[in-house]
Structure formats: C-alpha cells, structure tokens
C-alpha cells in the first residue's frame, strides 16, 4: 500500500514536471546577468577565468558564507563524534604499498593542490578544487598509518580560523579604504598573468587553505570515530 501510494505520488510528480517542462521558454537564455558579467568581468576584476571573478568578486559573500558552512560543519562534526577514547580499537596498520604510496604522494598532492589554487584566476580550478586535493594530501597519511598525528590539532584550528579571518579582513580593508565590503583591491595587472587580478588569488589561497583544513578535519573526524565494537 505504502509503495503504491509512493508510486502514484511519483507518477503525479513526473506528469507535473513534464507539464512544467512544456512551459519552459528557452528563447531568452542569452539575456542574463552572467552575459553582462562576461562583458565587463575582464576589465573589472582582471581575472581570465570569469567563474573565478563571479565566485570571488561579484558573489564573494556567497563564498565567504560557504566557507562558514564548512567551518560550522567541521566544528559540529567534531562535537558530534567527540573525542575518541585512548583505548578504543584502531584500524589495522595499512600495508607497505599504501604506506610508501602515501609518503610519495604527499608532496605531489601538496604541489598539485597549491598549483590549482594559485592558477584559479587563469584556468579552470581554484580554491575549492585545490583545497580538496590538499585535504586528500593530509588525509592520506592518516589512512596509511591510523592513529598518527600529522599536525597538531591546535595548529589546524589556528590555520582554519586565520584563513577565514583573512578573507573577512581583506573585505574589511576595502571598507577602511572607503569602498564596500569585499571590494577587490590591489592592481589588476595584465590579463592572463600569474600575478594579476588584484586580491583574488590571495582570496583563493585563503579559500583553498580553509577548504583543505576543514575537509581534512571532517575526514579525520569520520576516520577516527570509534567503530561500533
């Protein structure tokens, strides 16, 4: 009975979606805020990757909030899973191959992550994608050698706090300058050069470090959570 009602409900939903789809007007896809941004972004922000311009400049506050969501989620994750007991059983040590692989991959992932972050205003990629790779870099050793403390927890909380604070502080700096919060500062430079687009690369670096540390923290919390028995 339950399945039947559910199926009926979904069928109705499908029909409704089809009806809505029939009404969608595809003719005006060229008139939108995004195209207006495309026309002026290179001039206003100096970043060759317009998605980066939108993420960090035009919709910078969204990104700040998104970082805050990750920060909050990591904090709550730590609170929910709690501290593990000292005598709690650990996962068995991983094999030689994984250990060596992790050792070899660590610097490589670090470099790749930073590269992707620092080229975020020029090529696809940026703080989020690079941050995930950084998180993977710091999580891999934990997977290979369960129980090691790669970085002191205090350093992690300091870094993630400072990375978020940097983002806001750059925004506040603009206010001291008499501009609006989060206005991009510094020289825009030459379009396509590594050092260009003013504060955007710095912001993306903060984003990357923040994303990396929060995600690594979340992963570590989950991996360190005590097993059921």
């Amino acid at each position, binding site marked *: 009975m339950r399945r039947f009602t559910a199926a009926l409900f979904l069928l109705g939903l499908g029909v409704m979606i089809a009806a809505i789809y029939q009404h969608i007007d595809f003719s005006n*896809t*060229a008139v939108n805020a995004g195209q207006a941004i495309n026309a002026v972004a290179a001039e206003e922000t100096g970043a060759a990757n317009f998605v980066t311009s939108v993420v960090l400049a035009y919709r910078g506050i969204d990104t700040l909030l998104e970082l805050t969501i990750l920060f909050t989620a990591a904090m709550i994750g730590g609170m929910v899973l709690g501290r593990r007991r000292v005598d709690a059983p650990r996962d068995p040590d991983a094999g030689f191959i994984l250990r060596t692989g992790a050792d070899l991959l660590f610097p490589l992932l670090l470099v790749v992550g930073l590269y992707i972050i620092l080229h975020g205003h020029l090529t696809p990629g940026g703080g989020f994608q690079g941050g995930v790779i950084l998180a993977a870099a710091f999580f891999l050793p934990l997977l290979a050698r369960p129980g090691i403390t790669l970085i002191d927890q205090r350093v992690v909380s300091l870094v993630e706090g400072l990375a978020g604070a940097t983002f806001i502080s750059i925004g506040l700096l603009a206010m001291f300058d008499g501009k609006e919060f989060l206005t991009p500062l510094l020289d825009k430079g030459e379009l396509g050069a590594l050092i260009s687009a003013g504060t955007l690369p710095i912001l993306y670096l903060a984003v990357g470090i923040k994303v990396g540390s929060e995600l690594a923290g979340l992963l570590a919390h989950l991996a360190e*959570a005590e097993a059921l028995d």
Partner: protein
Amino acid sequence: MDILDSNTILYIAAFGLMLIGISGIVISNHLMRIIFGIALLEAGANLLLMLSTYHEGAAAPIIVDGNVPAMMADPVPQALVLTAIVIGVGILALALSLAIRVQRAYGTLDMREVRLKLEQEISADAGIDMPSSSEKPADIAKVPLNSVVQQESGS
C-alpha cells in the same frame, strides 16, 4: 533523434535525477538510502541550475591567451553550482557523523525505528508512560485521545 535534442536529454537527466532522489527519500526507511536520495536530488538540482542558461555552442567562460570567444557560457550558474556542491558535501559529512552517533545510541538506522525510539526517549524524559504499541510507529497523533482526557480529568 529529432525530438531528442541535447537540451531535452540534459533536462531529462536533471529531472530524472531529482525524481529518483525524491523517490529514494520518500520510499525507503533506511537512513543511508535517504542520504543517497538527498545526494541524488541535490545533483539533479545542480544540473537543473546549470542548464538554466545553457546555450549550445557557447565557449567556457575563460579567456585563454587573450582570445575572447564570440559567445561564452554564463558564469553565474557555474559559480552557484560550485557553491552548492561544496555546501552539499559539508552537510553530507554532518549527516554521516550524526548517523554514526545515532546508530551508536539507538542501534538502528531505520528512520521509523529511530523516530519511535526518539518519541519514547522524549516521553520517558518527560515522565510520561507511552502506550507500548510495537506494531506501528508511535505517533503523537495516534496516542489514544480518551486516555489523555480521562487522566487529566481524573487526577
């Protein structure tokens, strides 16, 4: 292939993912399936957002070596979806953490059972004896009305 231009196919993918996700949330009781369902629903919504201003033949919104394409894709939905994906993973991690704790406390991930045990726990904390009905989930609306009135008036 005339009726199935790529726009239609992509929209079918978006709405299809959303429908499958909703059905996962509505039909199943197991928490992991529900979380999978939410992830699928989110994926569908992200794709829908992405398609909102998709225009065939547009180039990616990146200037490479100073060549400005004649028409570039809309960067705004891309930024929005980027944000939505990251938000999604944060909430996913939170859901999984909570799932681990709830399973440790209640020994189950069946959401009906979790709800039942939650109701029992709340009632026990409040010092109310719940009518022990094991065959159906304890729903507040299903607490026998008469017993409440009698108890209240009789005391």
